[in-house]
């Protein structure tokens, strides 16, 4: 079967198996940031933007992406650069395996909602699993990035400062 997919702004024409998944198509075309984590559509590692919407490439038949635009981290570098430094500063990328999925989803979040609250960040990123951190460092780094664009907002948040009210239900138990 023949497909035409605009992958990271470049039109790619390819002959593929009918049951190929979009994740395998991306990897075939050297977009190695797109990874298989869980194989059940739960971990968010394979997140790509299809026509601007974050989607799980591990569950999309490549035929459905035919004629559409797909962006992976490789094509979102410029947009991601703005906040990835904050990730590094907080040590949010420990083993780094979940990071590409995270960053693609954060790009989608910030396009949809340029100034999200902590709760909105948590909700939007709930489909990205990270087994190293516990999500606090990612949240801190994103908050630092967002605060850096505002005047008089606190910067360099530490764990104690940020997220005091997150998980308060079980902290008090």
């Amino acid at each position, binding site marked *: *079967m023949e497909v035409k997919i605009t992958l990271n702004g470049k039109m790619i024409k390819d002959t593929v198996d009918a*049951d190929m998944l979009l994740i395998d198509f991306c990897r075939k075309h050297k977009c190695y940031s797109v990874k298989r984590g869980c194989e*059940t559509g*739960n971990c968010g590692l394979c997140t790509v933007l299809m026509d601007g*919407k*974050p989607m799980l490439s591990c569950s*999309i*038949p490549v035929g*459905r992406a035919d004629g559409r635009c797909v962006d992976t981290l490789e094509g979102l570098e410029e947009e991601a650069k703005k906040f990835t430094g904050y990730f590094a500063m907080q040590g949010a990328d420990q083993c780094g395996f979940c990071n590409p999925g995270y960053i693609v989803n954060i790009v989608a979040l910030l396009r949809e909602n340029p100034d999200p609250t902590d709760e909105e960040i948590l909700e939007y990123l709930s489909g990205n699993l990270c087994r190293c951190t516990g999500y606090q460092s990612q949240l801190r780094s994103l908050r630092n990035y967002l605060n850096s664009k505002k005047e008089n907002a606190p910067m360099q948040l530490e764990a104690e400062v940020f997220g005091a009210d997150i998980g308060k239900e079980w902290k008090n138990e």
Partner: protein
Amino acid sequence: MFYYNQYIRAKSLEEAYELYQKRQNFIVGGMLWTKMKNTTLGTAIDLCELGLDGIEENENEFRIGAYVSLRDIETNESLNKYTDNAFANSVKDIVGVQFRNVATVGGSIWGRYGFSDVMTIFRALGAKVELFHEGIMELDDFVKLPRTVRDILVSVIVPKETEKVVYLSQRNQSTDFPVLTCAVSKGKRGTMAVIGATPYMAEPVYDSENILSVTTDENIERFADYVAKNIRFGSNMRASAEYRKIICNVLVKRALKTIVSENEKEEIC
């Protein structure tokens, strides 16, 4: 692993229907659940070019296309205004935004899954489904349709007959399958509670004994007991039947109290 031999984007519902009559062929919804099978199938029929991804509203109803994603019903303003955010509440805990952008309403309803949050909320709203061949039928009848029937789900219709609806669910862990789902609605068909993930498919319980003719705390308790008594609970790896029964009682009570307090607020205004 999951394999199939051919992928076809149907050009019309007739074409899709004809292709679907072969047992080896299947319709691709979000493919999230289908993909988990360990099998080889024939042709994957994709309906993505048939314009089934829109939500239409008129005076009497909402018509939600089968290919509308769960994220769309979560963010659609008029749907959520009508249901006081119950739609957003029902799907917001389903994995993540990326997942909900892929999962479709049609796939969730057609699958008649036991764990379905989507089935629970639609049943509480007295929804109907439009099938290509069988026509429009009540969701209550659709769930009894044998799974061997090979029809195509075109859209889900939500009649504007509900005054209030509240959706609650219990999960062991955020983004996991629910332990129990609960939607309580009040409208033309009276008050009803729909309980799902029991782990069987969502079932409604109507207030046929008129327990809630006067909404006192005592009657709310009685109705919650009545619901828990009339639902069949089962045990699985997430929870036992006994636990589900207790949770059911609590969720129904909470939902009813929310409805009552909102009514009072409106009366004061």
